[in-house]
């Protein structure tokens, strides 16, 4: 599973500090170290969660943006986060990974994140994908 973390947030900060991504990545690495999930801390590609520090996820007005993604599964974006959500973000990544489609209807979005869900990007493939309709967190 892939956890995408914005390295630009807050985009509209003239200092272009990218501090959200740095803080969240550090917080996740600390959790991973405590949990002895060394692959996450080391950023190994075959880790249970592959972290990608990406340039932007397009949710900029509510800075602090991450998304969970996986091949063939819906990409789910959360906005308005801080590093204090690290545990919930990891839980979301694991739940997304365990779900068949990645659609929020198929997994339990952690309560802390429910109000932060800002987009569901369906991987539209010819003739086989269900349409989630609109954005709804369970």
């Amino acid at each position, binding site marked *: 599973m*892939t956890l*995408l973390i914005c*390295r*630009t947030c807050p*985009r509209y900060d003239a200092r272009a500090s990218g501090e959200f991504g740095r803080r969240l990545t550090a917080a996740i690495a600390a959790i991973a170290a405590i949990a002895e999930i060394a692959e996450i801390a*080391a*950023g190994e*590609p075959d880790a249970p969660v*592959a*972290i*990608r*520090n*990406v*340039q*932007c*996820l*397009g*949710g*900029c*007005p*509510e800075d602090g943006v991450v998304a969970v*993604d996986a*091949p*063939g599964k819906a990409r789910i*974006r959360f*906005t308005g986060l801080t590093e204090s959500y690290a545990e919930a973000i990891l839980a979301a990544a694991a739940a997304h990974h365990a779900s068949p489609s990645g659609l929020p209807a198929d997994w339990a979005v952690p309560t802390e994140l429910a109000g932060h869900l*800002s*987009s*569901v*990007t*369906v*991987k*539209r*493939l*010819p003739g086989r994908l269900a349409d989630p309709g*609109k*954005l709804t967190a369970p």
Partner: protein
Amino acid sequence: MPVPTSKVLFRNVSILDSTGADPYPGDVLVENNRIASVGTVDPDAAAGARVIEGRGRTLMSGLCDAHTHFSWNNSADLDGLGTMPVEEHLLFCLESARTYIDSGYTMCLGAASAKERLDVVCRDAINAGRFPGPRYLANGPEIAVTGGALIPSITKFADGPEGMRKAVRELVGIGVDQIKLSMTGEEITGTLRAEDTYFSDEETAAAVAEAHRRGKRVCAHARSAESVKMCVRNKVDIIYHASFTDAEGMDMLEANKDWVFVAPGLNWLVATLYEAESFGFPQEAAEAVGYKKELEVAIEGLREMHRRGIRVLPGGDYGFAWTPHGTYARDLQHFVELLGFTPMEAIISATAWGGEIMLQPDELGKVQPGYLADLLLVDGDPLADITILQDHDRLNYIMKDGTFHKEPSTDTAPSPDPANMPATATERLVQQRA
């Protein structure tokens, strides 16, 4: 700051050469701005080279974005592309150029400029070494007919064959490398439908004939079925979008696949449909104007193009608020997940075919002897996970024309196990000679 070097040896790398061969371990020697040898490097040839320890990391060609807009300024609306004053706009373009190469893109094909000379000035500044950026083929403002402009404030208007010839001549005069025709609508405008075609055959033919006569290629914003066929009939070299290509158009593309390129700009459709709500364009609105239908039809058509061997290249119209600069490699993920490309095919489309669309097929886009040294040293295997290329931290080294654009101050890649470290091809050669 770039560090000029005369010889660089990438030692013990996994060579992803963009020929279609599986990656293989070896060494790569760069001399001045070209790749001198690949696989096994003669130690004598490598004498005095600066050595980069690959430690098994992937060495591959720099990437190509076939649909680039330096001057799309991450605006949250179409009009924002036209309202920025030229001074600020030029600075933005130079920042875009730097962002492209920071993202591993060493080749970009300009798909239109928001003001007449922005692209041309950036290209020249990059080529002169004044600012960092990819190799760039510059465009001018897109040409549209009266009543058919997506964004009137950034459009060069022309009507009729004579009007087209004049517009092309003027753009050639300012130094563009290719001409852009905006032939169809775009649903986000609210008034100009993607399935409507505004150019006539006569206008398209005149524009293409004049451009080709001056040695320039033509690209086109062509979403409708009719526009795709009009492009092929009249030898438009690069077709952007091609969302509603019909059966006849598909056959025409296949019959002309030796020269035509398609660059769909797929991320624009995906992100506009699903991810633009934060900027005032919710999914319901995007569906209502037709983006859901267009994405579905486009994916079907593009998969068929891929099946028929038509060259479909990544390059995504990046530069709007919800498709910002720096996120370019997401296109490769779309190619794998939505269009059915294997990761190898997606990388070849972004590298080897990139060399072809840049008109340097024997010099760009592959890790082969004699090719220009535009290289990425990637921490990880993009064939195992294509999303690695979206993470700039994973692009440990970026080289363009034999010069490092990016290199770490300290290389923190994990060291191999000394007890189980295979000899490099070069070391084996030395051992054989001993």
